[in-house]
């Protein structure tokens, strides 16, 4: 008996959804087996994970607020990345762009925060962070357009430059370094939350909805429209599909590549200023890996803007929930989420394969 792979016709949406669902469930089952093997009750663990420990928790509202804090930068970064990915510009420099955005937003908060009115400081923070991050992304775009460098490698390397710049700022006490607290002998970042912070809206109870949630939702809708309806979005799609065709149609492909690389990175800068503006302090771990996770999210959501929000929300439940669930189980550390994420990704890839192909048993002819 032999098998071979055969291409499949297009499946309807619901069938594809079911395939992906099966992949996720299968991943959770594999996770359950691993949990069992290390002596953890998987049902209880998953219960804790998916409720994020909120049931019977008098600080559940805090959990949700913390959850949203993790969700927002990830969703916005993933949306930003999807913009570039749609054009087949492989911007994996989300980390670096986020860091550059964070540093510049913090710089604005520290220098202008006490003189300008808060709302103005926040706007300047956003604008400057977008500019700096955007230019950082543009650099990779420029090198690609000008010298034909590989943007994947470039953005990757630029990540490390940004990261070590952040470490340098975070570890070097010096008179120029306004990022660090003067009073502390050991390097500690200055906290500016007292005078610069994105406002929150009280939602009844103790739950507060940060204004960034609303802004991110609006940006999501705008990007959706940008990609689907505008001429810019159309150009991005054509270039992503075939650069030759785009040139043939008279598009200035270089200009479009640069523009999109800039917008993509600038949005990541905006995500960074939202993050810094809500946290009120810089840190060496400010990105929380959104630049990396965002790539996975964008891919899992197949660059669909709406799906990106859904997938980010789910990935955050996974990450946040597994931290909560891990508190009670000595055997499982918070990295379990990463492993589970890996298994899910792997199986969703497999599901993707089965959506596009099917395996046929070779029948003996008569």
């Amino acid at each position, binding site marked *: 008996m032999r098998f071979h792979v055969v291409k499949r016709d297009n499946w309807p949406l619901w069938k594809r959804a079911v395939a992906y669902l099966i992949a996720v469930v299968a991943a959770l089952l594999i996770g359950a087996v691993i949990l069992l093997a290390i002596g953890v009750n998987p049902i209880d663990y998953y219960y804790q994970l998916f409720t994020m420990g909120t*049931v019977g928790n*008098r600080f559940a509202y805090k959990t*949700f607020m913390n959850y949203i804090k993790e969700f927002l930068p990830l969703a916005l970064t993933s949306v930003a990345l999807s913009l570039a990915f749609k054009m087949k510009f492989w911007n994996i420099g989300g980390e670096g762009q986020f860091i550059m955005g964070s540093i510049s937003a913090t710089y604005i908060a520290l220098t202008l925060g006490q003189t300008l009115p808060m709302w103005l400081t926040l706007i300047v923070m956003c604008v400057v962070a977008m500019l700096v991050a955007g230019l950082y992304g543009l650099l990779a775009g420029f090198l690609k357009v000008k010298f034909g460098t590989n943007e994947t490698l470039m953005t990757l390397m630029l990540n490390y430059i940004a990261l070590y710049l952040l470490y340098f700022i975070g570890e070097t006490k010096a008179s120029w370094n306004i990022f660090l607290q003067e009073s502390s*002998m050991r390097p500690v970042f200055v906290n500016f939350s007292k005078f610069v912070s994105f406002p929150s809206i009280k939602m009844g*109870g103790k739950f507060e909805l940060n204004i960034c949630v609303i802004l991110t939702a609006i940006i999501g809708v705008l990007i959706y429209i940008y990609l689907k309806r505008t001429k810019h979005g159309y150009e991005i799609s054509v270039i992503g599909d075939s650069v030759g065709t785009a040139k043939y149609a008279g598009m200035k492909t270089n200009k479009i590549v640069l523009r999109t690389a800039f917008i993509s990175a600038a949005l990541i800068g905006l995500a960074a200023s939202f993050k810094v503006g809500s946290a009120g302090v810089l*840190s*060496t771990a400010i990105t929380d890996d959104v630049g990396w996770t965002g790539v996975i999210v964008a891919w899992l959501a197949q660059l669909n803007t709406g799906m990106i929000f859904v997938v980010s929300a789910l990935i955050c439940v996974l990450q946040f929930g597994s931290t909560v669930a891990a508190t009670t189980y*000595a055997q499982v550390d918070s990295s379990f989420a990463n492993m589970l994420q890996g298994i899910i990704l792997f199986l969703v890839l497999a599901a993707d394969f089965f959506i596009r192909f099917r395996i046929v048993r070779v029948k003996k002819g008569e």
Partner: protein
Amino acid sequence: MKKLIAIFLSALMLLSLVSCGASDSNEATGDNAKDLKVGAIYINSKNDTAGYTYAHHNGITTAMKELGLDVNTQLFIVDEVPEDPEQVRAAVDTLVGKNVDIIFGISFGYIDALETAAAEYPEVIFSHATGYKSNETNFNNYFGRAYQARYLSGIAAGLKSLQTGNNNVGYVAAYGTEYAETASGINGFALGVQAVNPNAKVYVKKLGNWADEVNESAFATELISSFGCGIIAQHCDSAQPQIAAENAGMFGCGYNSDMSPDAPKAHLTAAIWNWNVYYRTAMEAAMNCGSADNFVATMGTPAYYGGLKENFVDISPISENCAPNTQKAIDAVRELIVNGEWDVFSGVKLSITADGVVTKADADLLDNAGNVIVAAGGASVEDGVITGTMNYYVAGVQEA
């Protein structure tokens, strides 16, 4: 998509309202001491088998067992929390949601987040390792006089250098004067070496990182080959510097744990921490203080700072590789410190002969630029290790 977000947000709000209303009953702070719930925030994985997080985790679980607390049901850990205030706050919120009574944060960078958390949750005790902030009620910090143990290991190294006739001593350190923690360790060690061998030089090679096994080994090798060092001390996680010393036929002083199994022919002794000593003290205080705002009062100080006396720091048993009379000299100095007769960073210098005889004499404590830190006969400046003002090397130390 708008609809989607709307649904998402309303679901969130609904859930939060429900859970807010649900349970405001379960008050924290154990009335029954044995109900103490311990929370901990780690920088690395709680499943580590070596290193900083491991040492603390070991200390906490050991203390809990000593006190008859159940590690499986009474200990809640959020691990792999980077020094990011937002993430530390999220970890605190998670632990508070688990109704813990006391939260230990083990990494320095948690400092500001724990300070604000302590103000926000007055019913929970916050205890911060290696920090310097505290309040008068529910927030303290703790650290140890590791420099005392360093000084003792320095004596072992000094005697060995006399025996081998090689005055160059190497020191692979995570950082140098950037952190008082590393600077005090280097200085304590150097003063111990010089008490025996006044001609000895300590060459410090900085990693710029708390854990970097590759460079830990490479730097030790470089200290031996380029600076002629015969003894390698270290302030970093792995035993790589000791192994490098052994491979070069040299000697070494370890850190954090007895590294003799890693380098049986090289290892002299290691400065070690007994974190469980503090954790036990803190947990007992938490059980006995009645309410969280009495914690600092019960501890007696907002900055716990144990040393050889409390057995919080110590050295591992000296190995066969040590020079004769090492044990004798160390015992004599240990007695001076434990009895409070003398401390390392003071205006009194110890001199130790090859026979292990210890004598005291007043002398200026100088930094390596020749400035007087403590005038002859002055009192110890050990506070510099807590508040982080020690940002210099003592005379005889230089960066390689």
